[in-house]
């Protein structure tokens, strides 16, 4: 594939369809600028600031823009909140739709056939593959991203983090906890 992609890049570049330097700039941006650290900041702020949390649930696009985490967010970012009653999980059964702006590029498993096929009919089994067991009495809600709306899970704030700074809280927020296939890190282990 290395040669095949290089051939394509050379041909399209020679035809002048893009500035060849743009390719390197794009790669650098995806490798260093966007990533789950952005989403983790959003979650930590929501855990710390009830007004922000309310704004995030009401309109995540606007709330994330206003906190200055990003230049611009695509339309319709939607934050869905985990509660003791409901655990949320995000999938795209048709392709690989994922909130790039707040989580970066999706991991391989998110785009894989096992996850896309099973998330909608066996989410508890999928969680087991991740080593996650939910507390008894927790219902599961799966969100299939079939349009240009994008979802981020707002996980529950771990107990024992009272008084923690947003920065310290953000370190507990894993990528998987914002997709719904994981939980935040244990504060005792992280402290």
């Amino acid at each position, binding site marked *: *594939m290395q040669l095949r992609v290089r051939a394509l890049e050379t*041909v399209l570049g020679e035809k002048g369809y893009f500035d060849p330097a743009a390719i390197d700039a794009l790669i650098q941006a995806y490798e260093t600028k966007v990533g789950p650290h952005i989403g983790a900041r959003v979650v930590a702020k929501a855990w710390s600031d009830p007004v922000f949390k309310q704004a995030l649930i009401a309109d995540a696009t606007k709330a994330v823009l206003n906190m200055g985490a990003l230049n611009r967010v695509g339309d*319709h970012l939607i934050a869905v909140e985990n509660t003791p009653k409901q655990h949320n999980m995000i999938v795209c*059964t048709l392709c690989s739709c994922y909130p790039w702006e707040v989580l970066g590029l999706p991991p391989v498993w998110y785009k894989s056939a*096992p996850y896309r096929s099973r998330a909608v009919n066996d989410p*508890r089994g999928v969680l087991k593959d991740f080593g996650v067991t939910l507390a008894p009495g927790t219902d599961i809600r799966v969100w*299939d991203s079939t349009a240009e709306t994008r979802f981020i899970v707002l996980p529950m704030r771990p107990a024992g983090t009272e008084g923690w700074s947003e920065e310290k809280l953000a370190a507990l927020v894993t990528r998987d906890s914002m997709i719904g296939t994981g939980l935040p890190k244990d504060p005792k282990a992280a402290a």
Partner: protein
Amino acid sequence: MDGIHDMGGMHGFGKVEPEPNEPVFHSEWEARCLALNRAMGYAGIWTIDQTRAGIEELPPDLYLSSSYYKKWALRLENLVIERGLADADEIAAGHALRPGKTLKRKLAAVDVPNTISRGSYARPARAPARFKAGDRVRTKNIHPVTHTRLPRYARDKVGVIEALRGCHVYPDTAALGQGDDPQWLYTVVFDGRELWGESAEPSLKVSIEAFEPYLEPA
């Protein structure tokens, strides 16, 4: 189309295998392939729905046996050849043999920071929304041979409108290159048992983002 990409609810693919400390890219060509796709997308020759259709139209055996970025590379080759932006002999030679076409837009390195975010797919409504939150709806039993965003597992099923998401570009039309054809978009939530029968976990709920033409009152 009822293709291999429409995987929701299929059996037999095995366990999900998360990779600890997964890198952003697994090899350099993956990074270049992603960037190439973004750069060519910027030129505005095709819509996002046409690129999705391009992946879905890969032969099923190739779809299943190709990695994510390999599918992107194959799709891009097909698109540039289809649109006459490059020819197969040039890709085989690894060099342009003929001059390029003039495109609407050309991505420059300085514009990259502004292209990291996605574009906007919201459009002004042409008519009031047909449904409101709380309405019961049935998804249509449709099987178009072209691109659609109504997954097979959620066709001919009764659900409830949970939220209106505004009016958006309609993928089924945009994928055909016939314009935006804006339609209202709804979050429709289904009980697990409506989708999967008695064996479903009783408390499971699954939602899709459904465009108005997919829905009728129930």
